[in-house]
């Protein structure tokens, strides 16, 4: 009996326990929570709510998908916008008349410059800007076809105290029939406001015009509409421009000084806060920060206790010397946000450390500045030394190379600054045919990447490595034919056979530039690859026309009388695969500086170095066809057509200007062209002495358009590995090349 009682009691107990667990979860949870609160706060600050599953979504699916239907008609909205968002709230959608830029591509983007009035004397810098526009491929003299208008009046210096200040701008501008409240106008400015506050005031109403201004403040910057440009001096070169100062990537990358500054200290007024504090970080050893009070007429009036000591210290160091020998350069604001110092340190590969709060950096729309400069904060000046100390070697190397890349691509000349401004605006107007950020920030820079060609990175010769892809394993041969088709044994027939036998050849295009009409299809021999014959209209430059028929990335450009072997073609193509951004060809030529004539010279003699390979037989990327026809000015192409000469030199100029590298010559058998038989001597243009003189002239006129000499010399050629080695011929893959 007792046992039974025991069992019953026990059973009841158990039941109670179970019930407690079953029903009394809450009690238990609360109990545990007490425990949890003490420990949970340390481990997991935002709790895992017990009732988290009960939380509602932030919005119903229906609400998200259907949304509130907009009652407002898009057209109405657009009209309403133009009324509201104007002047200081301008955006391309509201203040820019896209209908003026209807036509596609380059034709749609024409820039008109107002004629300058008689007796007007603009500043040197503004004259340079207008020259750049006038020589650019977007320039038009017809205001009716213009998409963008640029004033003839100098608006660069809007400081009333300046000698360059142009008064009464408002009245004069309003008199322009095309002004249209400034719509589609582009206004350049370097200096705004005046002493003591140096505001963003231009002293006239720019209305709906796009402002390309230096020292722009982020608050006044109309994003996606204005363009911030760098402050440049009146001595800034029109074109070409000096290269950056970095000539080698030394490691360790640190220079003698870590950080430097040498400049004025404003004793009073705007910008003086930052400059007055700069002396704090000076330590005379690795950080040199020097200020002088000596500027302006009445500096001694404001002079303080530090001035004399600082002025002495200031004289001890040379600015240029510091610029060359410092890893980082402080670029603090002056009276205005931007300073000449910025471009100076960029060129000197001295990594700029910016102390200019609120400065909209030049071309900030497209350039990723945090990869090239250190953006400091005026408020944290004293942190700057520890910040720059902490920048690692790898990063210094990267930042420094990036300063050079940007300098060279966008800032080294007025031409580049102006063209970049125009291209940025063009990219906005044709936003779906525009460069992506990578194109702007990778070598060779946005100006050399034409989005009308393609917006796909893999279509350009520059990005293969960074995309992790390699160029296609096929090429298109383009044969430039000038002599009529008379026999089946003439050189072009042989050439066709040779080229079509290459396993990498996917198509052949014959560019018919002869005086005789196009021969019928039957006259051409049967080919294992597709053969196209197109009419070149007897223009020499047509050989570099961006032919849509070219389907491969590699192009083999050939003269009809070129003599090659299939194995020579194959080898050169494989070399090109390793150097897809360069010209890879056979016969080399060279340029040199002739001090007697004080001009560039051109030589076809055999020398130990070369800077040109003839495009009568050369591989290159098809993008260069596009650049040749669309990047180069019509004047140079006209020169080529007029003289029927120099197109190969121009192509070499172009490619070297893009890559900064020499072309590549590959191994070749002895003769390159058919030896001229007596009756063809007359026909062969390259045997003509006049032809040679023309080429000398060409080199000089090309160099003057580029503003510098882009060609680079090279001393080596690439041969097959066992070329002329004393090993069995049977082992050699390219044995044909050794036959004399």
């Amino acid at each position, binding site marked *: 009996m007792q046992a039974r009682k025991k069992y019953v009691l026990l059973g009841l107990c*158990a039941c109670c326990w179970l019930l407690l667990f079953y029903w009394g979860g809450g009690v238990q949870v609360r109990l545990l929570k007490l425990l949890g609160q003490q420990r949970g706060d340390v481990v997991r600050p935002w709790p895992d709510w017990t009732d988290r599953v009960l*939380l509602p979504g932030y919005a119903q699916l229906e609400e998200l998908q259907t949304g509130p239907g907009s009652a407002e008609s898009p057209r109405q909205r657009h009209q309403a916008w133009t009324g509201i968002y104007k002047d200081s709230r301008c955006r391309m959608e509201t203040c820019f008349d896209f209908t003026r830029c209807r036509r596609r591509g380059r034709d749609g983007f024409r820039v008109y410059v107002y004629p300058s009035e008689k007796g007007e004397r603009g500043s040197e810098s503004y004259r340079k800007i207008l020259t750049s526009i006038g020589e650019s491929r977007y320039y038009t003299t017809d205001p009716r076809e213009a998409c963008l208008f640029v004033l003839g009046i100098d608006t660069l210096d809007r400081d009333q105290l300046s000698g360059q200040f142009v008064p009464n701008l408002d009245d004069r501008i309003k008199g322009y029939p095309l002004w249209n409240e400034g719509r589609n106008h582009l206004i350049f400015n370097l200096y705004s406001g005046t002493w003591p506050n140096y505001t963003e005031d231009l002293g006239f109403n720019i209305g709906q015009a796009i402002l390309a201004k230096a020292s722009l403040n982020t608050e006044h910057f109309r994003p996606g509409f204005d363009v911030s440009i760098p402050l440049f001096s009146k001595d800034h070169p029109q074109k070409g421009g000096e290269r950056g100062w970095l000539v080698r990537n030394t490691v360790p990358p640190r220079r003698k000084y870590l950080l430097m500054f040498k400049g004025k200290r404003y004793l009073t007024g705007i910008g003086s806060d930052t400059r007055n504090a700069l002396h704090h970080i000076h330590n005379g050893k690795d950080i040199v920060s020097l200020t002088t009070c000596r500027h302006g007429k009445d500096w001694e009036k404001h002079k303080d206790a530090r001035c004399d000591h600082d002025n002495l210290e200031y004289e001890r160091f040379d600015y240029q010397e510091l610029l060359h020998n410092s890893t980082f350069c402080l670029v603090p604001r002056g009276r205005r946000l931007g300073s000449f110092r910025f471009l100076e340190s960029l060129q000197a590969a001295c990594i700029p450390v910016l102390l200019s709060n609120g400065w909209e950096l030049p071309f900030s729309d497209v350039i990723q500045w945090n990869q090239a400069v250190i953006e400091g904060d005026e408020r944290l000046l004293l942190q700057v030394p520890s910040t720059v100390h902490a920048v690692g070697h790898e990063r210094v190397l990267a930042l420094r190379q990036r300063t050079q890349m940007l300098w060279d691509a966008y800032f080294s000349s007025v031409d580049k600054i102006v063209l970049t401004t125009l291209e940025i605006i063009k990219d906005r107007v044709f936003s779906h045919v525009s460069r992506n950020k990578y194109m702007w920030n990778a070598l060779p820079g946005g100006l050399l990447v034409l989005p009308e060609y393609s917006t796909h990175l893999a279509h350009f010769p520059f990005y293969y490595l960074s995309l992790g892809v390699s160029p296609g394993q096929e090429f298109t041969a383009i044969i430039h034919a000038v002599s009529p088709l008379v026999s089946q044994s003439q050189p072009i027939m042989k050439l066709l056979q040779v080229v079509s036998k290459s396993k990498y050849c996917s198509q052949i295009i014959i560019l018919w530039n002869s005086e005789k009409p196009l021969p019928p299809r039957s006259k051409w021999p049967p080919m294992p690859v597709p053969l196209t014959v197109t009419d070149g209209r007897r223009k020499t430059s047509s050989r570099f026309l961006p032919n849509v028929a070219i389907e491969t990335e590699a192009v083999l450009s050939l003269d009809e009388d070129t003599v090659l072997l299939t194995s020579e073609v194959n080898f050169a193509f494989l070399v090109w695969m390793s150097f897809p951004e360069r010209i890879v060809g056979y016969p080399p030529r060279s340029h040199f500086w002739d001090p007697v004539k004080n001009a560039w010279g051109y030589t076809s003699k055999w020398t130990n170095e070369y800077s040109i390979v003839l495009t009568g037989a050369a591989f290159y990327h098809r993008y260069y066809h596009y650049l040749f026809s669309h990047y180069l000015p019509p004047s140079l192409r006209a020169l080529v057509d007029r003289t029927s000469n120099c197109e190969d030199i121009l192509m070499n100029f172009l490619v070297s200007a893009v890559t900064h590298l020499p072309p590549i010559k590959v191994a070749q058998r002895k003769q390159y062209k058919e030896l001229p038989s007596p009756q063809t001597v007359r026909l062969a243009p390259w045997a003509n002495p006049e032809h040679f003189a023309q080429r000398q002239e060409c080199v000089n006129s090309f160099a003057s358009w580029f503003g510098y000499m882009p060609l680079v010399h090279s001393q080596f050629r690439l041969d097959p590995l066992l070329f002329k080695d004393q090993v069995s011929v049977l082992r050699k893959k390219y044995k044909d090349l050794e036959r004399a």
Partner: protein
Amino acid sequence: MVRLSMCSSGKYSLRGPALIPRMKTKHRIYYITLFSVVLLGLIATGMFQFWPHSIESTADWSLDRRSMHDAPLIQLPVSNPIPERGDLSCRMHTCFDVYRCGYNPKNRIKVYIYPLQRFVDEGGVPISSTGLSREYNDLLSTISDSEFYTDDVTRACLFVPSIDVLNQNSLRIRETAQALAMLPRWDKGMNHLLFNMLPGGPPDYNTALDVPRDRALLAGGGFSTWTYRQGYDVSIPVYSPLSADVELPERHHHRPQRFTLPRRYFILSSQTAIHREYRAELERLKEENGEALLLLDKCSNLSQGVASARKRCYKGQVFDYPQILQESSFCVVLRGARLGQATLSDVLQAGCVPIILADSYILPFSEVLDWKRASVVIPEEKLPEMYTILKSIPHRQVEEMQRQACWFWDAYFSSMKAIGMTTLQIINDRIYPYAARTYEQWNNPPVVKWSSVNSPLFLPLIPPRSPGFTAVVLTYDRIESLFRVITEISKVPSLAKLLVVWNNQNKSPPEDSLWPKIAAPLKVVRTKENKLSNRFFPYDEIETEAVLAIDDDIIMLTSDELQFGYEVRERIPYRLVGYPGRLHLWDHEMGKWKYESEWTNEVSMVLTGAAFYHKYFNYLYTYKMPGDIKNWVDAHMNCEDIAINFLVANITGKAPIKVTPRKKFKCPECTAIDGLSLDQTHMVERSECINKFASVFGTMPLKVVEHRADPVLYKDDFPEKLKSFPNIGSL
């Protein structure tokens, strides 16, 4: 169900002893049975109670079990101050207190989350109709789990309120603003970050949150260029809760050709609230271009219980949404009353390239993401031209855009966690710009990151004047041979300095007077250990960019050959430029790599018995060599040259340059095994090295080429004395 069965078994055991009372002898057994059943019940119940919890946080299953209803209730007095409306001129340098973030060696901001409070007005009505939403809770948990989080309010740089303002529709604006102002550290909203996805309300739908918020930063979905404060606010996506529920089948096949498969439709429009003017426009496009376009709309006659959000219809045909998005190359994302659309997220998830038609819209994370590579932005006005514009995009580019779209979704859209972390990272990059992530890090999908090459030395620099090179000779004790090498090298015109690395610890180098007298400065460095890697140490004594590594027995190279090699390196600065070349081959029978030293038509390595290279590679070799390769080389006293070939090829993505013709070398690679002739074991060991290194690198970085560099006039029919490098290739 578990609980039910437990309960019944309990009852059974309860009845058990009552049924068999008379069996006294067996009572012990029943006693035990009963006890164990009860125990089992207890354990099972306990387990059940804690089951879901222990899955999620394995760290501590007894963590906290707080309910949101326990959060303190705060009553807002009507008279409480309201913050000012957001200041449109705010920028980081004007409205953000950077002193709070300070200098920080990790370059990481600290984020504090306010504890949850429930705000009600004086009438006891909550300020928000939904309270804390699931998404906002996820977001806050993410932040609190991340490395950004701090629970120390005094050390925080950024504050995140626990007031959920994701959806403005569910908020009472005035009261929410008052609640914000009541936060203990509010201080005019300085350094506070608010997350909002659905801004504005009827009728005109503002593009930014209407709640007055002083200087607080806003991470908003649907900014226009007029409300977005560039460099201050962060534009975020409108999160699509569908993505958590729906697994898109296509995404799960991790096939590389996933993007190359042709899709059925060219353009798809799946939004349901398109303004009739635009719908008319789309209809017209459809009429012109037919089947390539699919225009979906709401379904009007769905049976009960089917979620209309998951279906779309076209002329009575029903399609599953969002699955149908995977069938199209391009998908229209048109603005509605709001600029930000959740559809964008669905579209990206399906790997469909969004066509964005929303003038003035600031795309999500546009500060760091390059949308031009993943989308097509067309002005609304150009909607009629949409088809022509899209047709002009080459096929390969569309594929790349699809891949990019998928990647954006994976990395930045897929969850509240992704959205929250990206937002914080962007703000972090602004505060520590010198430690900011790069374009490639943000935009390159993992496939590209893996296969692409971004060499730290990328700028082609060709110095105008020759600065010369430093020759580094590694030697042990072969003095005679060493002196001959020194004498030979000293004849090279561009030699700037000669550095002898004395690798013998038991013997001192000869006295100064015994060394050959040469024009260039000669330095001797003594090493602490006889290691092969001493050859590639970045000695401070090396002041030139160009380094010539040379063995102490390479006496057969002429000064012309060396000078030429130097000139080639100056023109192709970031490669290994060497003399004897070697090749790696795939051995099909063995299924592994093989080392080849025969004279072949190809080359993928150059031996460093004599090679020019950039000093930077010394750094890489010494400090950045992946895995244990460096130690392995030192232990085996072999393959240091193969290792540097791997390293340089991996970082440049290019093959080395072999210069000058074939030459009889006195087995340049056997110096380590002291003059033994090229034997089989040596080859086997070198092959092993290649296989070992390839597995450490995870790939085979070596590139094979068929060319070598010779002087321009090499073997040309030209007077030898006029050639720059006449003495080349003589055996």
